[in-house]
């Protein structure tokens, strides 16, 4: 299995961006780039070819699900797995995100000390089965 190394984090809230960077780079040992919005995420994903995109659902401009659709339309980013992040916790909604092609959903607020482990587990689970 390919190890998870590069993560592109897309989030409009700068505080969350920063804490996720600490959580993923320092605690988790990943390589991380952050984008403020869906549009720049689409071009960054094309350029940088991350292993995983961690995508906030609710963003101004194009939102998370739309960004996912665009990533899928673009050949170079078609197969990059996406995990959504959302503060909503309705099972039906999570179900919906999975149905449109997300690996899984990380619920906000997240714990910066365990976020990396959570992503690794999702990564391993999706590759196991």
């Amino acid at each position, binding site marked *: *299995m390919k*190890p*998870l*190394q590069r993560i592109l984090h897309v989030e409009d*809230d700068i*505080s*969350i961006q*920063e*804490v996720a960077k*600490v959580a993923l780079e*320092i*605690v*988790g*040992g990943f390589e991380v780039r952050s984008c403020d919005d869906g549009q720049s995420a689409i071009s960054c994903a094309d350029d940088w070819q991350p292993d995983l995109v961690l995508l906030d659902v*609710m963003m101004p401009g194009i939102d998370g699900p739309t960004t996912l659709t665009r990533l899928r339309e673009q050949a170079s980013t078609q197969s990059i797995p996406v995990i959504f*992040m*959302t*503060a909503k*916790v309705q*099972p039906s909604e*999570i*179900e919906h995100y999975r149905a449109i092609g997300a690996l899984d959903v990380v*619920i*906000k*607020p*997240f*714990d*910066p*000390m365990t976020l990396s482990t959570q992503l*690794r*587990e999702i990564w*391993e*689970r999706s590759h*196991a089965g």
Partner: protein
Amino acid sequence: MQDSDIQARLAALREQYAERLGHDLQTLMAQARELAARQRTVEPEALESLRHGLHRIAGSAGTFGYPALGREAREMELWVQTVLETSVAPTSPMLTTLHDRLSGSYRLLEDSAKTTVGEPQSDFELVSGERSVRIAILAEGDTQVLLQSLSGFGYDCRGLSQVEEGHEWQPDVVIIDTSNLEPEVWQARIAEVPGAMRVLISDDGSFEARLQAVRGGAQGFFTHPLDVPSLERHLRQLVSLPQQDPYRVLIVDDDLELAEHFRLTLKGAGIESRVITAPRDVLRGLRDFVPDLALIDINMPGCSGPELARLIRFDDDWLRIPLVYLSAESDVQRQAQALAQAGDDFLVKPIADVALVAAVTARAQRSRQLSQALACDGLTGLIKHPAIKELIEIEQSRTQRSGAEACVVMIDIDRFKSINDTYGHGTGDYVIRLLANLLRQRLRRVDHIGRYGGEEFVAVLPACSLENAREAIERIRESFAQMECVAGKEVFHVTFSAGVASTLDWTDAGALLEAADRAMYDAKQGGRDQVRVARAASP
């Protein structure tokens, strides 16, 4: 990077966030107030902007250590959303209520800023940092005696009267001997250290006295004459209460949709689960996932639930895991028949989400307590030999998947036999406990510490480089060598030798452990009281 550095980085971000949060809350308050004061209908855009602001807080406050504020914001967000969806214009009193709730949140934020000025959050601090566990003691007359005996176990003890409010030294645990003190006196003193866990010592061992202690928030209760070793054992449990990993549940159900629903419901309650739809994959699932509990559908094609349960019970490794059937079967007779074969309990479908979570949590908790008790060494409370070996294997395969580095450390007390010969086995045991406590206090919460043999210890340090592991053990070695061990009237010093090996150099758990062992042996050969690193053979 050190755990404490991470905490410092997070603390800095938390501070920044608090400032922004205060600003955001004030903006929202102003918006709500302005809307409430307006005479004309409130347009949806204005509400949408409120909702967005609340949504941001709901999703972020918990991450930065303000979970209560986050939940409050979430409730307000839902309220605004309901208003938006029903398209009934909110009245002025409704908006005033919203404004008041917002200012309540703002006050909550200000209060928490006052109490945590410059202090890292206590739950991160305890045990994981480079300091001893702090204990404050209030025991009329006997304070000094208790202080000395607990200091001998490696705790940082002070009299409660020396603890000053606002001073940097605040206790993790406060021990109060209530026998010679008026309740008003010790209750007032205990209230001055609200963050500390409480242990009471009393003359009165009656049910009423114990109940009183429970109601007073005590987490430990001892009677005179005080048995110091058992007090110490209790303290060890209190302070090393591990930051619980989420409970793990294996769901075996051929109905994928239902199984996914269970998985998501449990996930919402912070319980991790893995779904298996084919009964034949269950043994692999158990081995890979090591659950605290298995939920098994009773009717599956090819293999019934009770058959599967009996099959699982063939293997002693899974004896501790409760097997719970999920079934539409409400016939008590047939339930009893299934349970008579194997399995521990029934959950009847359809089951309410709340009921599922409650049933699973209670059983998983019990299962985990039991396996922890079984896997721990009686003298030190550390993990026993077979369990720590298993942990090394788990860690090893985890690092292979993730590419991260983990280290294994082998530690052996120097000239232990001569300590036993000179001072007796009681003192030998005391030295072993001393080192066990030191390791527990100095290593991080994520680290696993095991007692490998008589005077041998093993530590598994996940997400840790070889150099960081060596440095950490080196510091512990120095502290240990400086500790004064007491045997009767004599004071002596003990040292240890250690070997460190990294998962990057050895890909097999057995070889990794052997490498750490060899490095430890080198340390012994090199004159003891030192830490050696296992170097991979050059390619």
